[in-house]
């Protein structure tokens, strides 16, 4: 009754459990992102934690979904769509957060009190660069 590694069904099962574990890890990562969204003191730190954790969470979850659907791979296109979605998330998520952070800086939302240095403000004051505002 010992499980045979070379049997097709057993390998499938192992891959499915791996996919399930990836899915759980990804959703936990998303949960951590939302806890960070609740706990952090100011906008800048919220954007930081939110972006990192939710990017990795989405990537892991989609990898897990791709592995869990391994039985249907031969029938329709799961893997190509998953790859496109993951690449799209890696490109767009940091850019949209960067734009948001810049908007927050333009709105002059104050930093939390713990903030030590602000080189950007120093450089704007010294006229090294102009304020990041679109017109």
């Amino acid at each position: 009754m010992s499980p045979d590694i070379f049997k097709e069904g057993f390998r499938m099962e192992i891959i499915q459990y791996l996919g399930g574990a990836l899915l759980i890890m990804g959703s936990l990562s998303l949960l951590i992102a939302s806890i960070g969204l609740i706990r952090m003191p100011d906008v800048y730190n919220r954007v930081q934690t939110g972006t990192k954790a939710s990017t990795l969470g989405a990537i892991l979850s989609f990898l897990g979904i791709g592995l869990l659907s391994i039985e249907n791979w031969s029938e329709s296109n799961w893997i190509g769509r998953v790859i496109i979605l993951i690449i799209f998330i890696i490109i767009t998520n940091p850019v949209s957060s960067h734009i948001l952070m810049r908007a927050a800086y333009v709105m002059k939302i104050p930093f939390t009190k713990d903030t030590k240095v602000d080189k950007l403000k120093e450089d704007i004051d010294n006229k090294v660069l102009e304020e990041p505002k679109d017109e």
Partner: protein
Amino acid sequence: MIKYLILIAVVILLMSLLGGLYRFFKGPSLVDKVVAFDSITVNSLVLIGVMALLTGRAIYFDVAIVYGLLSFLGVIVVARYIQGGL
């Protein structure tokens, strides 16, 4: 067994949706609300993926791609609106 794993994942996703919603209501500034919007969108994106898995139809992923694209556009529009562009 796999089904229970998926159920746990869905419950965790719904809880993190609640976290985003809290920030959406509470957020002192507009940027906080947009960050919450972004987080809600990513969670729903994964939710759509799980639904595709449950029904066994790969075609639902097309909807997920459109969803991600439009959320990117939405965030950029609001950011440009704040900066006075558009």
